């Protein structure tokens, strides 16, 4: 694809894909915030759940990385 319109589409698409990063930020903040809320209620149970915390963050964050990947593909690979 060549031309100004195609390039415009690429840039607009990459910018739209970047919204996904913000959405992933909301997700990760939700996981971490809820973990902290629970951990402050019952601090003795918190240490055993850090692995679950990281797994949850990883799953939430993977989708943000996917959107970042879409943006990169639009910018450099299309």
């Amino acid at each position, binding site marked *: 694809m060549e031309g100004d319109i195609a390039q415009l589409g690429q840039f607009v698409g990459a910018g739209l894909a970047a919204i996904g990063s913000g959405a992933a930020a909301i997700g990760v903040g939700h996981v971490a915030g809820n973990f902290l809320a629970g951990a402050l209620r019952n601090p003795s149970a918190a240490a055993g759940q850090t*692995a679950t915390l*990281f*797994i949850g963050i*990883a799953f939430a964050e*993977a989708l943000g*990385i*996917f959107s*970042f*990947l879409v943006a*990169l593909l639009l910018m450099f690979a299309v």
Partner: protein
Amino acid sequence: MGKIFFYAALALVVVSGLIFAPAEAKLAIHPMDQFQVSALFGDHISWYTPTNVTLWMALAVAAVFALLVLGSSRRAIVPGRAQSVAELAYGFIYKMVEDVAGKDGVKFFPYIMTLFMFIVMANFLGLIPGSFTTTSHIAVTAVLAALVFFTVTIVGFVKNGVGFLGLFWVSSAPLALRPILAIIELISYFVRPVSHSIRLAGNVMAGHAVLKVFAGFAAALGMFSFLPIFAITAVYALEVLVAFIQAYVFTILTCVYLKDALHPSH
């Protein structure tokens, strides 16, 4: 004392920004150039050519060897620095495997320890300025994730036989829903290696690209280049954290998948 040092560094950065400001500031950002694969000798690249990727992977293996084998070879009662780090890493991963994958997952501890040490060393070596980050390439992480995927699938079938398919048959759900859930579970099972590999490569690549983008700002801003340099320092600190956490996440997900293979019942 720390405060004086901080202000001295601050003054140094600002003054150097004033002195070395480029005459004509130009915004030229090429964040993806650092991931270029090139042959070490000559231009031709085929499957056996030593490239910068293979060089830095070999250096990562050498670093793991130096830390774990040479570092703990003295077997001191009171461990030195290298031995402490080696013992700490061993205990950390052993406990993770035991907690997440269960007692019978400990058999796979050498594999998971190897994965963790290789990824964490590759990530840390990639943070050295001017070096090459092997884990930023999906080709590298996809091989690691595919190995995990095939290992887990084979182990699941060898351990449980056809019972491994019970992983997709959610017996706690209503009977009418089970075929639909089975399809969803099947899809999510086959997407695992994709997300597993892209998570690591994407995080590492994104971090390094951000560093390069800020470096481009520093080149363009002339005498105000100290502002992006502070940002680079902060982002770099974050990247050190991310390098460790992504290696940790990769290995802990391996443990989770392994637990699914060893105990597939829902």
